[in-house]
């Protein structure tokens, strides 16, 4: 590893606010060299892009930089833990700071359940490198072999003599050392942090009101804005009259702005005021004329009928193995079914918001809840036409992300409003803005086919997805001739051994913006896939769980998940009449989880969801309690999407607007959830944030079938009217 020789500390002092001596270890992603390189950044040139991960000051202060925004998924603990474990410091000895896109490196965003699995080796190596350098600094000073020394609780100890020295006192010496070529990682059996249910450092801040979310940002001289946008997607601004709005006490200005979401550009009108309430009142008094461009003819019912028509076409091939057409044609037993799911909104508890300050020198500073500093830099630079170096994002705690905050439309718009007013401005979306304006999770329809032989064995299987494409609603260069991988997510990757399988994708155009939503398309495709497997089991007269196991003759993690589920859910213990249990599992890019749901048909006919047993396979686990929390959360979100309101468009706009008509699960509807983690090592580390979601809807609907004999093929359902 190279040791940069020239010294340019100015950049670092600026980034870190450091004043005294310090020891800084980071990573370089200089592209020419391929793999990331661990660097001693204490005395480094600013000629390539750098990310400091560890900063140890002579005072003993230890700072770990965290590139993965905390949105509830636990990265405020799990990411620094990777470094702290190897650095041999306890969590309470560390100050965590979010990165602000200081360097244009990949990875300053959280999504795809990728934070921990994508950082596990890399960040442990960073911590181990720093630890070895600190040990070397101490052993040099004591003139003893480094092998006789070890590190613990931010100190280096000399084993034979028992003497010790704090990291702060080693800063000067360590900063002059070379980075070890092959830092030795700790043996997992000696871990003190990783693999343990450690308390999350953000939790105490979230019980006393001290956690600062994007909406809580305060900037001197700040004004507030509420923004009027067309409810009908694709509407164009004809005219507006702000004379009444300007009469509202506290309203300062009314300015035009624009919301940019991928290829979509939506005109908007911002009411800028002394306080948010005044901005809202001004907005109510604003008179706007929109030209809907005919988009007010759009409605969900008609669009769904189009999808049903499209289901008859072939589309493009996403997967083809064996001879599906031949096997299906000759199969003695055939099944076909169409499954339908709704559009849903993300509805993070913290509505979209951003505080932006466009300064005179074309530097833009933003304070925002967003899933990545990298996203803010990239999007603001692209949309506003200013260099990335001019953009300073401050990423605060996200009041929920779920994929919504992978977009930065709210931030670019706020920056434009700040530019127009010349002041720092806090833009807050109302809940109605948040629910009605998208982007949304797309609906997917699934046309399923299976051919069984006389023994009930599956010989042909087909999952055809008919849906809008997330990518097409955002990208002008969408290629309709190729199967959309994101829209066919997971359907060809299950461990079921189908000898003849042909999966298809039928593209359906839509003008409404769509986006990833926690567990993306698996959140809907798993419903069709796993309910249909249940239909096949029923047709074959087999137990649904045993039927699945019968389709998995080879060992696999998915098979282990099912076996574990069978055990923890007491699957073989019969339930009384009126109760039923259902099973589902789904493996996709983010990970693998299986669930058993138990329901009761109550005397009034309503279905009560009693219990959910979940088994998530991770390979390696960093924080078991947090994993359980994430699976509990995924189950709730999956349940909301299955049994509460979807988004229905009428006359071009969302009929749902707030929590009164876009309902969420409440505490009285919460089933008992039991989460089991499989973490048996191995090379694969799977994700945590999303996999708990997809199996819920199919396991629930399979349970309803077991309890009532009624097969559910369309979501959402009303549990009171099954």
């Amino acid at each position, binding site marked *: 590893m190279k040791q940069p020789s020239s010294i340019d500390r100015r950049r670092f002092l600026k980034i870190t606010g450091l004043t005294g001596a310090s020891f800084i270890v980071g990573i370089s992603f200089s592209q020419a060299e391929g793999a990331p390189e661990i660097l001693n950044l204490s005395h480094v040139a600013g000629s390539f892009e750098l990310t400091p991960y560890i900063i140890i000051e002579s005072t003993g202060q230890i700072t770990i930089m965290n590139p993965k925004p905390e949105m509830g998924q636990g990265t405020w603990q799990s990411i620094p833990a990777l470094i702290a474990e190897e650095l041999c410091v306890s969590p309470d000895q560390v100050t965590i700071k979010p990165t602000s896109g200081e360097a244009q490196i990949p990875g300053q965003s959280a999504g795809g359940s990728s934070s921990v699995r994508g950082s596990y080796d890399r960040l442990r190596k960073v911590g181990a490198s720093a630890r070895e350098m600190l040990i070397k600094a101490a052993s040099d000073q004591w003139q003893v072999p480094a092998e006789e020394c070890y590190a613990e609780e931010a100190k280096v100890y000399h084993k034979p003599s028992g003497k010790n020295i704090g990291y702060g006192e080693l800063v000067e010496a360590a900063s002059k050392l070379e980075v070890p070529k092959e830092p030795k990682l700790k043996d997992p059996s000696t871990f003190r942090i990783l693999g343990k249910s450690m*308390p999350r450092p953000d939790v105490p801040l*979230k*019980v006393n*009101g001290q956690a600062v979310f994007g*909406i809580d940002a305060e900037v001197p001289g700040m004004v507030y804005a509420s923004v009027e946008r067309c409810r009908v997607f694709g509407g164009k601004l004809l005219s507006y009259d702000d004379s009444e709005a300007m009469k509202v006490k506290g309203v300062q200005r009314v300015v035009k702005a624009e919301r940019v979401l991928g290829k979509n550009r939506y005109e908007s009108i911002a009411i800028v005021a002394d306080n*948010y*309430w005044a901005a809202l009142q001004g907005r109510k008094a604003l008179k706007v004329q929109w030209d809907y461009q005919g988009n007010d003819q759009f409605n969900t019912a008609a669009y769904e009928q189009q999808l049903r028509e499209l289901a008859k076409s072939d589309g493009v091939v996403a997967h083809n193995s064996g001879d599906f057409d031949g096997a299906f044609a000759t199969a003695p037993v055939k099944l076909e079914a169409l499954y339908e799911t709704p559009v849903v909104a993300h509805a993070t*508890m913290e509505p979209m918001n951003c505080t932006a300050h466009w300064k005179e020198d074309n530097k833009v500073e933003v304070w925002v809840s967003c899933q990545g500093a990298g996203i803010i830099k990239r999007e603001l630079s692209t949309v506003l036409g200013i260099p990335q170096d001019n953009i300073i994002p401050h990423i605060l705690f996200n009041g929920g992300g779920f994929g919504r905050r992978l977009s930065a439309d709210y931030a670019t718009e706020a920056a434009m409003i700040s530019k127009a007013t010349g002041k720092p401005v806090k833009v807050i979306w109302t809940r109605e803005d948040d629910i009605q304006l998208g982007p949304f999770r797309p609906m997917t329809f699934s046309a399923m086919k299976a051919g069984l032989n006389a023994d009930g064995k599956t010989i042909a299987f087909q999952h055809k997805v008919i849906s809008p494409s997330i990518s097409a609603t955002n990208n002008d260069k969408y290629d309709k001739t190729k199967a959309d991988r994101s829209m066919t997510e997971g359907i060809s990757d299950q461990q079921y051994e189908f000898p003849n399988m042909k999966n298809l994708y039928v593209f359906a155009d839509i003008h409404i913006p769509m986006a990833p939503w926690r567990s993306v398309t698996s959140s809907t495709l798993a419903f069709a896939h796993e309910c249909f497997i249940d239909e096949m089991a029923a047709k074959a007269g087999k137990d649904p769980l045993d039927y699945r196991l019968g389709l998995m003759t080879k060992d696999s993690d998915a098979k282990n998940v099912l076996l574990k589920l069978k055990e923890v859910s007491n699957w073989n213990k019969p339930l009384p009449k009126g109760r039923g249990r259902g099973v589902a599992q789904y493996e996709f890019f983010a990970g693998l989880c299986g669930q058993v749901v138990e329901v009761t048909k109550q005397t009034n006919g309503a279905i009560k969801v009693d219990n959910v047993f979940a088994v998530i396979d991770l390979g390696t686990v960093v924080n078991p309690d*947090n994993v359980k*929390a994430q699976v509990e959360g995924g189950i709730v979100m999956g349940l909301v999407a299955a049994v509460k309101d979807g988004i229905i468009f009428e006359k071009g706009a969302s009929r749902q607007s707030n929590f009164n008509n876009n309902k969420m699960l409440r505490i009285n509807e919460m089933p008992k959830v039991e989460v089991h983690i499989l973490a048996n090592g191995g090379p694969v580390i799977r994700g945590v944030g999303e996999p708990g979601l997809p199996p819920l809807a199919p396991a629930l609907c399979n349970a309803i079938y077991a309890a009532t004999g009624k097969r559910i093929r369309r979501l959402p359902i009303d549990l009171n009217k099954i």
Partner: protein
Amino acid sequence: MAAFNLTINNKSYAIEADPQMPLLWVIRDLAGLKGTKFGCGIAQCGACTIHLDGNPVRSCILPVSAGTGRKITTIEGISVNSDHPVQQAWIEEQVPQCGYCQSGQIMSAVALLKKTPKPTDAEIDTAMQGNICRCGTYQRIRKAIHRAAELHAGQSKKSF
């Protein structure tokens, strides 16, 4: 605009505001107490829950004028050192995920325990139904409320 004297967390605030301005925005933007959150604006989600003379109310629909002469308590006012049994239980059970709704959840839980120091599951359901958590922490909220009741019984010092 009108002048209001508000007592928030036993501290006096002289506020100039439109009488219709909801207490939520007065508390957040004029008194500068940011722990109380905006979630829906129509009293559906409970993120803005505060206590008015000890009773839980939705500050997003309550005009500032309704707060005068009353004792207003926000999340910042329920303890000095986060040592309220509900806060302790919330930490023990690691309840929050994103945390945005939790100020409101805690305010509702504190109000429940004041009236019902040992609530049943059904009583928890009734008292907490107005608070939405999108992250799905309900199971832990329930557990933490039972735990707070235990902690408080163990301390047996004062009322919640």
